[in-house]
């Protein structure tokens, strides 16, 4: 460094490099420090509006779902129930349902029958306690129903916001898309903290208390299946579903990612997903892929099955099929 002769300065004493502290410089320094501190406090003032209990020490110290001891998990479930009752006036039951042995869930959707009524998208909202600003606001629904032109399966030409007087329109057909619970799930692979993973029954879940909100999984998903809580969920008490579970439809904090879990609080309890129950045309088929006698196994064996974006190599557990 500093080989250039023009760089050499006459060496100075320390006193020449910086002047000693005098009463005058000390006072000036103190005034500047006070001004800086006042600026810092003013800058941070919005933090006073943070709600009490929004960031607690317990939350910060909580371990990953899969590392929790049963008694710790029970304590957390009771706390979450109390929080829901306190904030929304609804006393929920929050359970922790484990995957059933010998079960791998699969879902098939009959594109010949679907009429695009969006009842599934609305039922999803009611079942899963997503944020919504009005009854018609289905942005956070885990199901996006696409309207496509007959003659091709061209997503690029699809319309998500179709709004005709009646459905189905004659020259159109409809394709609901939700999480495909992929066997090679790109979303779980990219998560830097393993806050999202695949369970033994194939369902991809999120630990909302572990997610750091980086949204890398959203960038990775080829099916636009993930939603982010850009704000604290907007929920009316009357619309809250009290039948909840830790890994699925309990009320989410702001700043985390959520997604379809095949309604695991229902399906691991022997019921069908909410979107299937509400479908007026019977376009939806749900069941155990490992059971050769299940309806889903029959469809995969006998129907013309279409896999959305098969080229991406995600190996979905969600299938589309056509009637003859």
């Amino acid at each position, binding site marked *: *460094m*500093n*080989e*250039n002769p*023009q*760089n*050499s*300065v006459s*060496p*100075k*004493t*320390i006193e020449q*490099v*910086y*002047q000693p502290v005098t009463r005058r410089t000390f006072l000036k320094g103190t005034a500047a420090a006070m001004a*800086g501190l006042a*600026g810092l406090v*003013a*800058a*941070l003032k*919005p*933090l006073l*509006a943070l709600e009490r209990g929004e960031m607690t020490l317990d939350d*910060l110290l909580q371990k*990953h779902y899969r590392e929790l001891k049963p008694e710790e998990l029970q304590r957390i479930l009771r706390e979450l129930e109390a929080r829901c009752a306190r904030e929304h006036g609804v006393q929920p039951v929050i359970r922790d349902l484990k995957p059933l042995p010998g079960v791998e869930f699969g879902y098939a959707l009959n594109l010949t029958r679907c009429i695009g009524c969006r009842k599934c998208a609305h039922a999803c909202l009611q079942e899963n306690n997503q944020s919504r600003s009005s009854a018609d606001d289905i942005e*956070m629904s885990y199901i*996006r129903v696409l309207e496509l032109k007959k003659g091709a399966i061209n*997503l*690029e*030409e*699809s319309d*998500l916001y179709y709004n005709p007087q009646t459905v189905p329109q004659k020259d159109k057909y409809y394709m609901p*898309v939700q999480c495909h619970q992929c066997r090679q799930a*790109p979303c779980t*692979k*990219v*998560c*830097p*903290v393993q*806050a999202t993973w695949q369970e033994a029954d194939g369902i991809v879940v999120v630990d909302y208390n*572990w997610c*750091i909100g*980086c*949204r890398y999984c959203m*960038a*990775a*998903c*080829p*099916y*636009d299946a*993930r*939603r*982010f*809580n*850009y*704000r604290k969920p907007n929920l009316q008490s009357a619309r809250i579903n009290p039948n909840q579970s830790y890994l699925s439809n309990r009320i989410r904090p702001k*700043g*985390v990612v959520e997604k379809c879990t095949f309604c695991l609080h229902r399906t691991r309890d022997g019921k069908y997903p909410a979107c299937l129950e509400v479908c007026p045309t019977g376009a939806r088929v749900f069941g155990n892929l490992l059971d050769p006698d299940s309806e889903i196994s029959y469809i995969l064996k006998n129907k013309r099955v279409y896999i959305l*974006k098969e080229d*991406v190599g995600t190996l979905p557990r969600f299938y589309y099929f056509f009637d003859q």
Partner: protein
Amino acid sequence: MSEYLTFLWRVVRISFQGSWKFYAWMTLLSVVSLVGLHAYARQVVEGLETTGMTNQVSWGAYIANFTFLVGVAAAAVMLVIPAYIYKKQFMHEVVLFGELMAIAVIIMCLLFVTVDLGHPERFHHMIPPFGIFNFPGSILSWDVIVLNGYLLLNLHIAGYLLYCRYRQTQPTKKFYIPFVFISIAWAVSIHTVTAFLYVGLAGRSYWHHPLVPSRFLASAFVAGPALMILVFQVIRRFVRYWIGDEPIFTLRMIMTVAMIINMFLLGCELFTEFYSPTQHAAAAHYLYFGLHGHNGLVAWIWTAIVLDLVGLALLITPISRKITGLNLACVACVVGIWIEKGMGLIIPGFVPSPLGQIVEYLPTFNETLVCVGIWAFGALLYSWMLHVAIPIMNGSLRARPEIASSTQPSS
């Protein structure tokens, strides 16, 4: 030990001494940083809804700036290679400025990632044993390692050399030369890994492209040296540290070559996308020409291309042998590449969405304030580092001034 504490104390003291221009500049940067912090505090309370991001466009200005700045940090290597591999003595006079810039810029990168998180208070979930680090599966965890590693490498090299200089002892080679060579490879890795963040996503065809990392590096080696050239001139105008023309024109040569490669790769990309357009070209179509009446990025990208072309034209002609022409080229390249990496690379990855929807993105005012705040903070950090480092480098701050004052400065 006590000598080191004295050193630190002197650094603190000298940090607060300067001309009125220095005070004015630092005050301005502090105020802008605080405005950014205020905007961020609002975002913490209200959530990321204060940004323009949506479920469809889930990354925006924060990640765009992050990506650009990783490139700038990596470009410090373009000072290190001529200095340490080609042994250009004149580069040794300035190589430290590049390393210090890398430190400031990496800190800006980490801030940009932090403000993008929905739950920044859970960052310890990434740090074992408190958390679970998804390594080697997640490229983001690789990025955390390479960025922090690069930060530590540069802190060590710059800190060690400055301290030796302050004590007027010859630095011991084995304490820093190995790290210098590691940092060269490491610099390439930070930008490559950051490119892999995007390239690794098979569901986003706009990013899933082997050319992306090469273009990242090429454009970084334009934007980084361009910023350095501008900084060198500020230093030689305002501070008592002479920087000759050789480092500046060495960087000009590097910029020129990198810019030619960058534009060549851009041409390859455009040919592939548009000669036989597939459905996968929709994002590129949206970026350059608009799609179905949506053309939010068209003005941005053509501005970037024009600036890139102007920069290239200035660089390859004798105009940039004059300092004014070179400065013009640097500004054009920095702005052009900043747009290209931000609005031109991150946003079109999300538009159209994987299901074909077109949701456009524009940063909000609050989001812009946070970005400006981080830039100001980075400038504050770098200005402070230069303010401390330059008196050490030109010999006016040294361990034993009374001894030194009786002899000529040794080197």
